């Protein structure tokens, strides 16, 4: 382990640990949750751009009827990859970026519980993305939709691709192997981070940070982690079964040999519905942090927010078959799942009203984070309302597989998750980089995105109700769909312009932005107590937590009329003010007691050392995956090599020298 403020240590043995603290090796070997969070964000944002370009290609193809911009095969690959990329490689890891960066800061910890496992999660996620997109060079990308229903995953969307009855051509098999193994690898990353975050939240809290004092974002991370923990193995099994089906002729989902295509749907959606909460709860958490700060009020109904989050996660396991009403699962099942779907709107409504209650009567500052957060509240409500219409079974029969559904889930995932993530990006950019994003450009970004989003996705409600089906690569002239499709395409380019404004904003302010200071927003939670950007060890002194919204509590005491009154630095009645100039917080505070081993600010702070092995172990996974794709001796060779790299990496991981041996 490295020790802050001690001289750099040289490598001792073949199993020595890397020591670079700057440069590319420091990033490749880092176990610092903040660096990993930044890497998650940058990588996921790159995938977000890729998915965005795919969306633009889709919209160009559909702008006018009977276009030949893309072939049917290209279109199938692109809309499938748009879905997979946005869900598994953009929104989920963007959520993970915030989890990684903020979680230890919010609970007053120095790092996560398993720092190397955290690095492993990131590298596995990256490996999964590379593996999935390697299809560009290996006979095509997955083309069965992100849901990849059987028997589409057997015969391919184009039946003429099939040799003989039920026997898929090699290219389609390859695409399905990419899908099954690629998502499997991504699932391992999610599983590893869920274990890590659960243990971190349960075990790494600063003294006094009880569960009901946790910042709400940490609560949502906790809930999301449990959803990932239990959802990933279900899709994992389905993906293995699919892999065995297409590659090794098992009979799980192929009706021609006695398999049950509905089983895939059940397994997929038993994962898939919790997955939508995995995508949205992090955004809910971010918004619940942003709104109180910019309303200058505590979060309205903290406990209700916590328990409604838990209720959403719990009910989320009992609604999956509402994706399958049209599959013929019977009136009893349809009625039951329709009801449970209506129930889940209740805790979601509780959240919406609590956010409104937070803003109501508050001293609202119209900053960019607030705009995005309020945007989420509005747009998610529209998406939530159209979601409830799906629970009405006869209505659902009309909407299923139409653009109405596409409109619905873009309102919740774009208008919800992406708006929330941008709220968080503007809110936390000063903490991460030490500089403020430009507010004017930020507001321009919001305005363009808000307009572009609604212009793109609102007409999809109309087109869907008029009967335009999803997943078609073109449509006939004279259906009455031409006008709104053109409008949607224009809207998509407005969104692209909004993203360009955001990127310009980051590029400009990254170097020349206004210096933020520790607490530029007058915020409430612990992450704003430390410097911007935080030091590697986060806090010089692990803070003693005495209240929910600890930082706010330290900065202000209530006046006679219960309005906050600013406390002069160092004069808090309970304990000294840690907030202030970056120099001030570096001074160890002698008044504060040390809290157990490692909390003692007077001696060296032990931080986990960087490691090569998470990267090595992760690198073995796509190698083994390509083995499944290949055949014959190449297959065995790649599987053996991949297995050796994975296990070699894990053995090196276990045998690495640790802190005490290094001294």
């Amino acid at each position: 382990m490295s020790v802050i403020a001690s001289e750099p240590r040289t490598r001792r043995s073949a199993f020595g640990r890397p020591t670079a603290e700057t440069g590319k090796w420091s990033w490749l070997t880092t176990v610092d949750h903040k660096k990993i969070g930044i890497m998650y964000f940058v990588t996921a944002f790159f995938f977000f751009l890729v998915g965005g370009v795919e969306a633009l290609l889709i919209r160009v193809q559909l702008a006018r009827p009977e276009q030949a911009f893309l072939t049917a095969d290209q279109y199938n690959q692109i809309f499938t990859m748009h879905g997979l990329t946005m869900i598994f490689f953009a929104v989920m890891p963007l959520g993970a970026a915030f989890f990684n960066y903020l979680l230890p800061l919010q609970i007053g910890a120095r790092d996560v519980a398993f720092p190397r496992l955290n690095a492993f999660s990131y590298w596995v996620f990256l490996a999964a993305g590379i593996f999935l997109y390697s299809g560009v060079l290996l006979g095509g990308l997955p083309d069965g939709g992100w849901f990849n229903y059987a028997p589409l995953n057997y015969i391919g969307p184009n039946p003429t691709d099939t040799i003989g009855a039920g026997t898929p051509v090699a290219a389609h098999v390859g695409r399905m192997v990419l899908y099954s193994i690629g998502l499997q690898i991504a699932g391992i990353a999610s599983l590893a981070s869920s274990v890590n975050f659960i243990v971190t939240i349960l075990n790494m809290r600063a003294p006094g940070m009880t569960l009901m004092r946790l910042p709400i974002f940490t609560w949502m991370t906790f809930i999301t982690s449990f959803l990932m923990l239990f959802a990933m193995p279900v899709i994992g099994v389905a993906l293995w079964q699919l892999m065995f089906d297409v590659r090794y002729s098992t009979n799980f989902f192929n009706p021609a040999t006695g398999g049950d295509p509905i089983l895939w749907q059940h397994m997929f959606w038993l994962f898939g519905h919790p997955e939508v909460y995995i995508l949205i709860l992090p955004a809910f958490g971010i918004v619940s942090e942003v709104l109180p700060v910019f309303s200058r009020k505590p979060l309205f109904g903290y406990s209700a927010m916590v328990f409604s989050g838990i209720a959403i996660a719990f009910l989320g396991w009992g609604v999956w078959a509402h994706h399958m009403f049209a599959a013929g699962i019977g009136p009893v099942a349809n009625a039951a799942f329709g009801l449970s779907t209506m129930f889940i709107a209740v805790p979601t409504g509780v959240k919406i009203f609590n956010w409104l209650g937070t803003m109501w009567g508050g001293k609202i500052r119209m900053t960019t984070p607030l705009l995005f957060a309020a945007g989420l509240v509005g747009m998610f409500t529209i998406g939530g309302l159209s979601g409830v219409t799906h629970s009405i079974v006869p209505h659902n029969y009309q909407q299923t597989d139409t653009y109405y559904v596409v409109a619905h889930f873009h309102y919740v995932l774009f208008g919800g998750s992406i708006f929330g993530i941008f709220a968080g990006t503007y809110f936390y950019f000063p903490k991460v980089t030490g500089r403020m994003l430009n507010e004017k450009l930020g507001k321009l970004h919001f305005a363009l995105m808000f307009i572009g989003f609604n212009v793109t996705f609102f007409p999809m409600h109309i087109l869907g109700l008029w009967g335009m089906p999803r997943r078609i690569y073109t449509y006939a002239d004279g259906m009455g769909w031409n006008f709104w499709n053109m409008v949607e395409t224009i809207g998509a380019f407005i969104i692209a312009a909004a993203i360009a404004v955001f990127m310009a904003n980051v590029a400009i302010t990254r170097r020349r932005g206004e210096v933020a200071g520790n607490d530029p927003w007058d915020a409430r939670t612990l992450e704003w107590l430390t410097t911007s950007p935080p030091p590697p060890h986060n806090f010089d002194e692990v803070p003693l937590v005495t209240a929910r919204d600890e930082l706010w509590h330290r900065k202000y005491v209530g006046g006679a009329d219960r309005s906050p009154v600013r406390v002069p630095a160092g004069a808090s009645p309970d304990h000294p003010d840690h907030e202030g100039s970056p120099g001030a917080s570096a001074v160890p505070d002698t008044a504060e007691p040390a809290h157990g081993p490692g909390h003692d600010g007077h001696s060296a702070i032990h931080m986990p050392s960087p490691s090569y092995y998470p990267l090595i172990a992760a690198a073995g996974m796509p190698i083994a995956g390509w083995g499944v794709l290949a055949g014959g001796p190449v297959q065995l060779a790649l599987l053996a090599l991949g297995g050796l790299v994975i296990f070699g990496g894990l053995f090196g991981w276990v045998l690495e020298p640790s802190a005490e041996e290094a001294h």
Partner: protein
Amino acid sequence: MAAGDMSAPLPGTDYEHATSLGIANDKLGIWSFIGSECLFFGALISTYLLYVGRTGDSALTPATIFDIPFTSASTFILLMSSLGMVLALAAIQAGEMRKFRTWIMATALMGATFLAGQFYEFTVFVAEGFTLATSPFSSSFFVLTGFHGFHVALGILMLLSMWAASMMGRLPQQLHTTVENIGLYWHFVDIVWIIIFTVVYLIPAATAAPVAG
């Protein structure tokens, strides 16, 4: 394991804090992982239950294919390995390293015997024409029991690593918590096998067709 054992950070572990719950991080991590594994095996077992009657054109049904006495014997050996694991943990907690090595090796060998039995069973099945591709029943059987076997194999690898580390003197007695965590995993894999043996072998073989006598 008393919480007090974790009050001081042990060498070779990542945790720096006295943990909030008083449970070691890695133990809590293993328990979370086991929670996840329940869903993994739950999904595989559900698939099997759905497909146990779908034998297609094949005459190879649960009633005809399974060799219950043989599998009972290998099941017994796997369950006994859990006892070996308990004794190994007790030995290292008591600081009796020789005894620890004996029992951890015995546990690994019992696990390996079980795996060998599974390998033999699969070989016999394939020779009888019961393969991955025979029917939904065969597919779900092989994928379920195969994944269980993979878990046993990983467990054996960890047990043997423990044994080797102890032989090389790289497993100080303080690391008994690591042994305990591997033990949790091992017991879990055994418990899953109890469910699999009951649900996959015993019940279908007893109910699917009236067996002579």
